[in-house]
């Protein structure tokens, strides 16, 4: 019997995260993102908004016996060379500043750097336009 090759089309996902690193929905977002890539799909952008910006913070110190989401996100983005964008307005309000913003606002702590990019909501809309599916994680 001839083998039937089932090819599923590659879908483009935009994944937006609204909750902090310690929230269960942040872990779900990462697991979903990993499953999307493992399933052969593309992630056009990861966009962190509201408390989601904390997932990009290098200042977060996770208790030893808990999952270190910021570290896992960083590794995931670096490994797959994904576009990881943090909303600048949401980040500023929450004290997640990169070097440029820390200098601009004369703040002590630089909390975010590569691979994360601070940018505007236009990047979220851009991703929504480009992707086949927008999946949001957050709340609880």
């Amino acid at each position, binding site marked *: 019997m001839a083998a039937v090759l089932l090819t599923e089309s590659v879908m483009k996902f935009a994944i937006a995260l609204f909750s902090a690193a310690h929230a269960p929905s942040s872990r779900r977002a990462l697991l979903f993102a990993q499953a999307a890539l493992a399933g052969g799909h593309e992630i056009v952008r990861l966009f962190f908004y509201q408390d989601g910006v904390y997932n990009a913070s290098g200042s977060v110190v996770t208790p030893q016996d808990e999952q270190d989401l910021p570290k896992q996100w960083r590794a995931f983005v670096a490994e797959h060379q994904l576009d990881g964008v943090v909303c600048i307005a949401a980040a500023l309000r929450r004290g997640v500043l990169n070097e440029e913003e820390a200098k601009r606002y004369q703040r002590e702590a630089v909390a975010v750097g590569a691979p994360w990019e601070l940018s505007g909501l236009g990047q979220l*809309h851009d991703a929504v336009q480009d992707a086949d599916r927008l999946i949001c994680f957050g709340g609880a």
Partner: protein
Amino acid sequence: MPKSLLMISRQAPWSGPSAREALDIVLAGGAFDLPIGLLFLDDGVFQLAAKQDAKALQQKDLSANLQALPMFGVEELFVCADSAAERGLDPTGLALEETRALSADEITALIDRYDQVITL
């Protein structure tokens, strides 16, 4: 054809930054000429209550941002009639005149119409 986005705003005006941050997504979309709709649902309807005084809480008054929506090309504005009624608000006496009051069934159809949706 650009994809359309419906924002469903469910939070009361000053319960944290959610109401403002939902509005920011809508305004940004409007600024980029994208087809954006905004539905006020559940406590989100309180954003439309008349005679609010944000200054009393030293909070930002969002009504200026709301009034700016049509100027940003966002004219698809809706309010859940049930949410308003449950909260003692008259859908016809809201701070934003251009909102259309929708029934639950109409909201089902509304969500269906849009390509993407964010519920905040």
